[in-house]
């Protein structure tokens, strides 16, 4: 984190992060409550404690830039500009969810803001992102592609294939490893040979840096620098953002596989609290900080209530969006 917020514009920037990170936090806390109430369906992978990555990365992305995410993608999606109401509806499997209720949390996507989807398959989006960047380059567009994945993903083949591809074709893609130390119940350190994500990326020919992923300004400025190189056509870049998953792997996971003390210690690094501390130092009054939280919470409560009041999609909708040629609606197969 920069030493302190030096100027008004820094404060404004930090404040924006604070609000956004609270919106993300509130969205997921609301979703988890919805899960308890059995209104949110399917699995929810909360990113609580990781909001600084979403905020810091997306602060550098324009709407026409492209983002691909993971199963733990609510924060990224909100940060990219998606509407919480549509997202909440999606988590509840309702009409007018981003994906019309077909995808749910694990496939959350909003193409209208350049968010090309979470993915239910670990690492799958890495090669898709390489291809999206390939198209950007072929079409000589100015935008960039950013692909976020977890530290567990670096042990799947597509990590190698996608990074190598991006390096070979010098594609405008930023790879962001959101290193939260865990893959489900397993510590990734125990399952990863060598020195980790950044060393691997470099071995594939992709320069990169590591950053404290709970420090939103550090993430923001690291990404700014990396994207600068990338926007001049200097090929792909890599960021490893070290963070920690403060909750269980899913909403249903009590995460008993790690000591309480470890988690408590990590809560002290809560990225939202860290932003708040800086804002306090810069003289932002406590009431305003509380208002940011409350505003986010109110927004998400409202979204949730509206989503609850939205009907499920009509059954016939199940047959739409499959394919044009051989459309299942053409004949009841």
């Amino acid at each position, binding site marked *: 984190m920069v030493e302190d917020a030096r100027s008004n514009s820094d404060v404004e920037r930090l404040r924006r992060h604070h609000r956004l990170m609270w919106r993300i936090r509130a969205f997921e806390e609301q979703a988890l409550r919805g899960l308890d109430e059995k209104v949110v369906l*399917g699995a929810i992978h909360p990113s609580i404690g990781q909001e600084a990555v979403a905020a810091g990365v997306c602060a550098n992305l324009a709407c026409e830039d492209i983002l691909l995410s993971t199963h733990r993608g609510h924060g990224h999606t909100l940060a990219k500009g998606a509407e919480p109401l549509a997202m909440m509806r999606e988590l509840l499997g309702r009409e007018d969810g981003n994906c019309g209720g077909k*995808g749910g949390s694990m*496939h959350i996507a909003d193409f209208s803001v350049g968010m090309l989807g979470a993915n239910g398959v670990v690492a799958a989006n890495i090669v898709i992102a390489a291809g999206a960047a390939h198209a950007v380059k072929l079409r000589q567009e100015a935008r960039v592609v950013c692909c976020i994945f977890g530290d*567990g993903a670096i042990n799947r*083949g597509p990590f190698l294939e996608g990074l190598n591809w991006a390096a070979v074709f010098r594609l405008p893609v930023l790879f962001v490893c959101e290193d939260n130390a865990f893959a489900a*119940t397993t510590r990734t350190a125990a399952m990863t040979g060598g020195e980790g994500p950044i060393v691997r990326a470099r071995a594939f020919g992709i320069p990169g840096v590591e950053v404290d992923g709970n420090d939103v300004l550090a993430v923001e400025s690291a990404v700014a620098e990396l994207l600068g190189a990338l926007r001049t056509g200097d090929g792909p870049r890599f960021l490893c953002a070290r963070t920690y998953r403060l909750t269980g792997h899913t909403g249903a996971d009590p995460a008993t596989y790690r000591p309480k003390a470890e988690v408590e210690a990590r809560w002290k690094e809560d990225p939202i609290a860290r932003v708040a501390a800086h804002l306090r130092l810069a003289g932002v009054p406590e009431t305003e900080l509380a208002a940011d939280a409350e505003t986010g919470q109110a927004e998400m409560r409202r979204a949730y209530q509206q989503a609850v009041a939205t009907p499920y999609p009509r*059954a016939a909708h199940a*047959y739409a969006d499959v394919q044009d040629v051989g459309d299942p609606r053409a004949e009841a*197969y």
Partner: protein
Amino acid sequence: MARLTYLDAGRVALAEEMRRDPTVWALGEDLGRGGVFGQYRGLTEEFGPDRICDAPISEACILGAAVGAAMMGTRPVVEMRFSDFALCAVDELVNQAAKARYMFGGQSRVPVVVREPVGMWRSSAAQHSQSLEAWYVHIPGLVVVCPSTPADNKGLLKSAVRCDDPVVYMEHKSLWPLEGEVPDDPDFMVPLGQARIVREGRDVTIVSWSQQVNIAAEAAAKLADAGISAELIDLRTLWPWDKPAVLASVRKTRRLIVTHEAVSVAGFGAEVAATVAERLHGDLRAPVRRLGAPRIPVSYAPTLEDEVRVTADGIAATAREMVGPG
């Protein structure tokens, strides 16, 4: 006999086989913590982390390593977590495991059990709900098993572990909590390739497997109430499948419904239906019928997800149609 869940029956089966044969081991992600559904709970404590081996997120290597380890005298049980993720390891399963014995002219066998939890499971959507058993039946070299009861999940898993061929072993996720009587005998086995007559009947044969068997049983009960006597066959193993049992039943009932959760088009139901149509055409009193999912991916929203389900009512209605007002 003990009352066990389908999940625990599989767990007990593996534990028994690991006790019996020190070359049996399991590998997969998060097994150390009991596996994602708890299928491995307690096994690390008994067998240690070498034999209940936590793996990186490397499906291709999990399966490929199992192939190599099987060639070298061990019997790996591979956990794929969701059958959908096994699609990250198809070369390893289809080009390697299934063909190694053949390509190498019998120099090696590949005794691997690949556990692939299948099927719909409350709003899991398109990448966590698939049933692709038909694929593996199409591949020479593979055995394909789809247990539907706790007892079968014990007896068939034990048979699979002892089998020298690569076995694709598909447990249905919605069956995990199902309870039933399971024999304690550590030598209790259910032979691969033998169907189970769930219910005898005269008027129509219903062939099914996996979770769909329970839905078909419901249909059969409804039909009984309506005076139609349905014979329900649980195939249990899809390759080899118990053709004699099915043909004998249809020779008797002269009507066939085959029903499964998977997509109907090019599903394994087509194989069963086509075989019966080929062999028993002249005996049939009604055309063979298949009931499976429409050719659409599985959705998240329940109203949409339900559209791919074959219901007991749907099966019963089809049976009534076939038997006619007679």
